């Protein structure tokens, strides 16, 4: 070992020491530690010596060694801010193009950031109006059926609620809710359909909804009491002074016992009316025989209010105990209850049977991440351009340093400058935000329903803090760079060396920017392609020109008669469910083996349904018409069902006449076998499916095959026919193809949002690249001129100038494209049982677009530089 570099104490420890130690003590102390270090080195070796050095440095952190913070230096910042402001403004005005790129880039990227903040702020302040918000917990249910995946529900059983109410200690109050109250409210002659919740008398103890009139403790006590929010009262009566009046639902009269203030927008509980829990007619509700069963967990909600000193852990322990006792009565199912804080209801995991709007927290994280990337991209621009243009500012820094500015002060100056710029950008981005907000809210009714994004003082405060932090992030690297400049070097004029320092940093920032932009844009292109393929996906039956009319309780026979008279209606069928839109009806059936049962999806249709939709029968026949559902034991099944129960899947015609049983023992005969078709969305694999005969589906749909010619007049005739049958409810008729498009709307929203962010990312990255190209051609102008004089032609000059940028773009593509491919192939598209493969075309589209744009930017500038007259440039020398 050569002794040219003797072992030295740990550098970080040395830095730490000189950072915290008082300057007057530092040297002596460092010397002492060095001496001990050398001693230990000789005696115990390098590692021990270093270790002891670290320990000693830490041990010397004492009150008398600590540096006194130099507050007067902060004060100098305050005095100097005027000067900083002035120089920042001057430099902004002097380099208009770069300032434009910086301010505009920051402004557009920050506008999506503002949107995100507004969204988050709304989501996090959900249910804040409940005074006891932090103490309210909802009881949620996890079903663990044997042999299949567990299901998480927001609802719980009435029994659970009652048990908690009766026997749990340490609970201030419990309120039970039930969803599904609804119907046509009749007041005098007017009929308005409304929907609401059943709630018990503790409702107002737990929640802080305010009653305008009526007694909160008694209003929900008696059966057939109803509380209306003012809005509903106005809809029904035209005014809200209606306490004690009655409303008729069907054959029952409800007495208004309370008028409530309107529900705030940011409330997860939403209803047109509250009806006392006691009015649930037990005979009716218990018609399925298990209203109070432990496993009837689908329609009720329990909210627990803990006392001031209550602990959710205790509640959970008691819930676990309750579950253990009650689960003994269940065979193939375990039910677990847990307490969910009120604050986790809106933003949290998606639960089935949710009441009110929810948003998955992953969606928030993904969206937030994407927005962050766009903002960082704009910050990169700022960093890049500032460092690139450091030549001019470095003289200023040199002079400042000579005049006595400390490194920290220069650092502060440049951070303050970038904060000033980002605050300037905030003004523009706020205007953009206002425009974006409208677009965002109208993107999807769900979003509009979820949040209002209203501006408040708190929100403005968040915005300012946000923009300042963006400024600090954007300005930190340049500020660090400037603060490290050596005054002497800068002023001596060796600055040309400085000019191309940090080239690697700048290059890597450009690569990162373009990689992210490419991932964004390729994601958009692939996503859009997939979305389009979902819409035209061959479902296995025809949806063209089929109009689905919701019967809303009307007899299908009546409406069918009216509609049959319209010549453009070529066929009419009924069905309980419109398939392929995401909702599914199911039941459990068995074949010969009594222990082997399976879940199957189900639809109830009449004899016209299959031909109207062009379903293909592989064997057997269509249903024979009956007058009543119960008279028919015929079913038509799909291939998967034959496969599942192994009923001659190879030869469907042999399955005809086979019988399957439902759980209650009814037997059904297979009369036909359908070719497999997609009854769910493309995310779902095709599984066993059964068509059951039913001629009358007043809760379902009429499916009309329509002649597409002269649609408006046909539609108006259908509307007239509907009005003759039902005077109260407006016609709800949708074309099948439109419904499918709606079923995939979430994807269209996603594509739109990501597409917009991709657009922003590309614009910002392109602006940054443009700035860099302009800067480079400006600084290399002399070199270009000399090359030209020496005989270089234009094309070789353009190649010379743009090759490094093109190389960066290609590098980004090499990183981004495989990454995106794997992201989709291995993570995203795996979730879709049926999807198109990713084509080379989609993968390359984004890249070609980005390269074309970049080449245009690079080309225009390099061409301009290559065409300059060398004489003009060189004469100035």
């Amino acid at each position, binding site marked *: 070992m050569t002794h040219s570099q003797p072992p*030295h104490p740990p550098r970080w420890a040395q830095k730490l020491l000189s950072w915290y130690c008082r300057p007057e003590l530092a*040297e002596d102390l460092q010397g002492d530690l060095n001496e001990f270090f050398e001693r230990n080195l000789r005696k115990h070796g390098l590692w021990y010596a270093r270790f002891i050095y670290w320990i000693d440095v830490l041990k010397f952190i004492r009150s008398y060694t600590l540096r006194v913070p130099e507050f007067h230096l902060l004060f100098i910042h305050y005095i100097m801010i005027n000067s900083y402001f002035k120089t920042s403004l001057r430099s902004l005005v002097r380099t208009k193009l770069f300032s434009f790129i910086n301010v505009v880039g920051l402004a557009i990227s920050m506008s999506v950031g503002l949107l995100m903040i507004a969204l988050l702020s709304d989501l996090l302040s959900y249910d804040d109006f409940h005074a006891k918000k932090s103490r309210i917990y909802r009881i949620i249910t996890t079903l663990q059926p044997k042999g299949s995946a567990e299901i998480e529900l927001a609802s719980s059983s009435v029994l659970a609620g009652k048990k908690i109410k009766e026997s749990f200690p340490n609970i201030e109050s419990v309120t039970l809710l039930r969803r599904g109250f609804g119907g046509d409210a009749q007041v005098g002659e007017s009929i308005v359909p409304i929907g609401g919740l059943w709630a018990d008398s503790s409702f107002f103890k737990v929640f802080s909804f305010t009653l305008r009139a009526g007694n909160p403790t008694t209003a929900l006590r008696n059966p057939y009491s109803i509380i209306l929010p003012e809005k509903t009262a106005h809809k029904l009566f035209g005014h809200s002074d209606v306490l004690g009046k009655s409303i008729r639902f069907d054959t029952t009269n409800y007495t208004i016992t309370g008028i409530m203030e309107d529900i705030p927008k940011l409330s997860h509980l939403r209803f047109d009316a509250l009806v006392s829990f006691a009015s649930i007619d037990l005979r009716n509700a218990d018609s399925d025989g298990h209203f109070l069963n432990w496993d009837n967990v689908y329609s009720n909600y329990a909210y627990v209010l803990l006392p001031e000193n209550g602990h959710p852990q205790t509640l959970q322990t008691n819930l676990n105990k309750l579950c253990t006792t009650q689960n003994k009565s269940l065979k193939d199912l375990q039910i677990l209850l847990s307490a969910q804080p009120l604050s986790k209801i809106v933003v949290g995991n998606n639960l089935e049977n949710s009441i009110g709007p929810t948003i998955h927290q992953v969606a928030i994280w993904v969206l937030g991440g994407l927005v962050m990337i766009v903002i960082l991209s704009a910050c990169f621009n700022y960093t890049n351009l500032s460092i690139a243009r450091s030549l001019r500012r470095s003289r200023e820094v040199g002079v400042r340093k000579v005049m006595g500015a400390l490194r920290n002060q220069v650092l502060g100056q440049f951070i303050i400058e970038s904060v000033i710029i980002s605050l300037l950008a905030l003004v523009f981005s706020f205007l953009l935000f206002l425009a974006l907000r409208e677009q965002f809210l109208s993107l999807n009714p769900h979003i509009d329903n979820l949040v209002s994004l209203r501006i408040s003082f708190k929100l403005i405060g968040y915005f300012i803090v946000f923009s300042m932090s963006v400024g600090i992030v954007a300005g930190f690297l340049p500020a660090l760079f400037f603060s490290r400049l050596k005054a002497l070097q800068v002023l001596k004029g060796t600055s040309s060396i400085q000019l191309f320092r940090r080239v690697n940093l700048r290059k890597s920032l450009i690569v990162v920017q373009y990689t992210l932009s490419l991932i964004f844009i390729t994601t958009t292109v692939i996503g859009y392609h997939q979305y389009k393929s979902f819409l035209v996906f061959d479902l296995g039956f025809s949806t063209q020109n089929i109009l689905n009319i919701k019967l809303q309780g009307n007899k299908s026979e009546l409406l069918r008669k009216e509609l049959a008279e319209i010549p453009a209606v070529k066929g009419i069928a009924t069905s309980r469910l419109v398939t392929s839109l995401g909702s599914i009806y199911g039941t459990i059936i068995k074949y010969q083996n009594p222990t082997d049962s399976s879940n199957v999806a189900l639809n109830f249709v009449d004899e016209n349904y299959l031909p109207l939709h062009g379903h293909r029968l592989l064997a057997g026949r269509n249903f024979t018409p009956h007058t009543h559902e119960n008279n028919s034991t015929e079913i038509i099944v799909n291939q998967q069902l034959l496969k599942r129960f192994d009923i001659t899947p190879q030869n469907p015609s042999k399955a005809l006449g086979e019988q399957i049983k439902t759980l209650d023992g009814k037997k059904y005969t297979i009369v036909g076998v359908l070719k497999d078709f997609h009854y769910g969305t493309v995310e779902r694999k095709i599984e066993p499916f059964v068509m059951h005969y039913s001629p009358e589906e007043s809760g379902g749909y009429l499916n009309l095959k329509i002649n597409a010619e002269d649609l408006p007049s046909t539609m108006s005739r259908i509307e007239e026919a509907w009005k003759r049958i039902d005077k109260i409810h407006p016609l709800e008729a949708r074309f099948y193809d439109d419904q499918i498009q709606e079923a995939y709307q979430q994807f269209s929203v996603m594509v739109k949002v990501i597409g917009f962010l991709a657009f922003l990312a590309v614009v910002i990255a392109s602006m940054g690249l443009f700035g860099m190209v302009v800067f480079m051609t400006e600084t290399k102008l002399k070199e270009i001129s000399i090359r030209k004089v020496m005989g270089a032609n234009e094309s070789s000059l353009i190649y010379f100038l743009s090759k490094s940028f093109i190389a960066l773009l290609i590098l980004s593509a090499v990183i981004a494209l495989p990454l995106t491919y794997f992201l989709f192939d291995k993570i995203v598209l795996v979730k879709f049982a049926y999807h198109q493969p990713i084509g080379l075309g989609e993968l390359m589209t984004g890249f070609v677009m980005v390269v074309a744009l970049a080449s245009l930017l690079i080309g225009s500038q390099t061409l301009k530089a290559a065409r300059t007259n060398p004489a003009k440039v060189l004469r100035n020398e």
Partner: protein
Amino acid sequence: MKGTHLGEFEELVLLTIAALSSEAYSVAICDELEKHTGRTTKLGVVHAVLNRLEEKGLAKSYLGEATNTRGGKRKRYYEVTQVGKIALTHARDIREGLWRVIPDLHLGGAL
């Protein structure tokens, strides 16, 4: 006066400074103390005491010349001030006074 009160360890350090005369800097003081008392003496403790002594005006310090050892850092040498000398003598007087009034001490037995 509380400010000029001399603690036991402070007294030892001050005595060591006086004993080392012109070679009294922190590490040397540390070593010397170890040699005389037989206890391990931590640099941190000595450092804190030196700092306190200087604050009380019992010792004063100056920086020496830079050398090749210690990573080129200068040593801080200490010397006892007039006040320090008085304090030391005072402490010794108190002790001797007390020794003198002890009526009958069998040193032989104690050892």
